[in-house]
């Protein structure tokens, strides 16, 4: 039961060898739906004279990923409407569009004619609640990406909203999901049943994704060899050719899973995987505790 890792920017690809489908799937499900994050839940609209309706604006604001470590916050209690400083982050978006007096007469470029006509996520500012300034002295809570377009405005329109971010999980609403996507696939296993040479080798190489089959020159003849089965996308092109159909066997290695996790930027992907494993342990622990506390009849 070993683990190998390959990392990229914002995404993580790693292998897990020796576990079973049930557990691999459990990790994938937890990564998608049960790792908590912070997202905008309640939007208090003080003034919205833009053409974007209130509820559409609120929906869009909720989907913006917020760079805040959810482990620092608690879940909000059920009936609690106000929100305390331990479970809520407050953001404000206050923006007004005005006409640019210095613009040229005939210009039709909105960038020149108006100020603030595009509302981006960088206009959202954090408003500390209670003792949050002490708790997070260098607290820099803002959306992950600054250039998410929220709404478009024209002169005279303004948006003035206050947002409450709470901690939630993806099962409740997809905006709380911390991954762009999390998936796994099994390692392909390509075996050549007979040695394949010359033109057949060339044709075989074209059937698979580049890099899978390598042609070597052994004693003057070109012989095909499986170089890197991992790169294969399993398109089964080889079965369309009569000559090659029976010479290759495509299968999958049963317990070698290649996971691919892409984070939305809230937490780095390796932290997400660790959190997911801890959540599964937490679930087991919960039932063990229940077993011990409830008397059996």
């Amino acid at each position, binding site marked *: *039961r*070993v*683990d*190998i*890792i390959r990392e990229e920017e914002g995404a993580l690809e*790693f292998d*897990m060898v020796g*576990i*079973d489908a*049930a*557990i691999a*799937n*459990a990790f994938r*499900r*937890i990564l998608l*739906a*049960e790792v908590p994050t912070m997202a905008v839940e309640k939007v208090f609209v003080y003034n919205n004279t833009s053409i974007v309706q209130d509820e559409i604006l609120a929906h869009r604001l909720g989907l913006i990923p917020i760079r805040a470590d959810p482990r620092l916050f608690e879940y909000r209690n059920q009936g609690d409407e106000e929100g305390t400083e331990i479970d809520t982050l407050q953001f404000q978006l206050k923006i007004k569009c005005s006409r640019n007096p210095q613009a040229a007469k005939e210009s039709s470029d909105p960038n020149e004619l108006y100020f603030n006509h595009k509302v981006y996520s960088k206009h959202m500012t954090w408003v500390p609640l209670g003792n949050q300034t002490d708790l997070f002295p260098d607290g820099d809570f803002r959306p992950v990406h600054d250039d998410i377009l929220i709404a478009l405005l024209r002169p005279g329109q303004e948006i003035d909203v206050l947002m409450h971010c709470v901690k939630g999980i993806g099962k409740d609403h997809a905006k709380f999901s911390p991954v762009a996507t999390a998936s796994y696939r099994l390692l392909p296993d390509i075996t050549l049943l007979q040695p394949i040479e010359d033109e057949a080798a060339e044709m075989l190489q074209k059937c698979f994704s580049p890099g899978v089959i390598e042609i070597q020159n052994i004693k003057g003849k070109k012989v095909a060899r499986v170089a890197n089965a991992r790169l294969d996308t399993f398109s089964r092109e080889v079965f369309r050719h009569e000559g090659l159909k029976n010479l290759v066997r495509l299968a999958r290695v049963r317990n070698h899973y290649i996971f691919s996790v892409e984070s939305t930027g809230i937490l780095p992907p*390796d932290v997400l*995987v*660790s959190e997911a*494993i*801890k959540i*599964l*342990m937490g*679930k*087991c*622990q919960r*039932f*063990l505790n*229940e*077993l011990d506390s*409830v008397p*059996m*009849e």
Partner: protein
Amino acid sequence: VQADGTDGNCVTFVLHDEDHTLGNSLRYMVMKNPDVEFCGYCITHPSESKINFRIQTRGMGLPAVEPFRKGLNDLMGVCQHVLNTFEVRLLPEELRGLF
């Protein structure tokens, strides 16, 4: 949270707030136990999030709670092992020799 079937040998547990995530992985761990004659889970209705988890043990005198407890512990052990191996792999080359 549980409910009982017939005698101590076969028990149906009702787990609230759970779905295939825990159900399938727990079923897999319990099936590895040689004392277990039957193990399965089902989702009673997709609108409510609870599962019926049933374990039936072979032979006499073995309460069905035992394989359930063992399965949970085994699953925790697997997770712990995965977490450890994963975190060791994340460390840079030099520190890996320590583990």
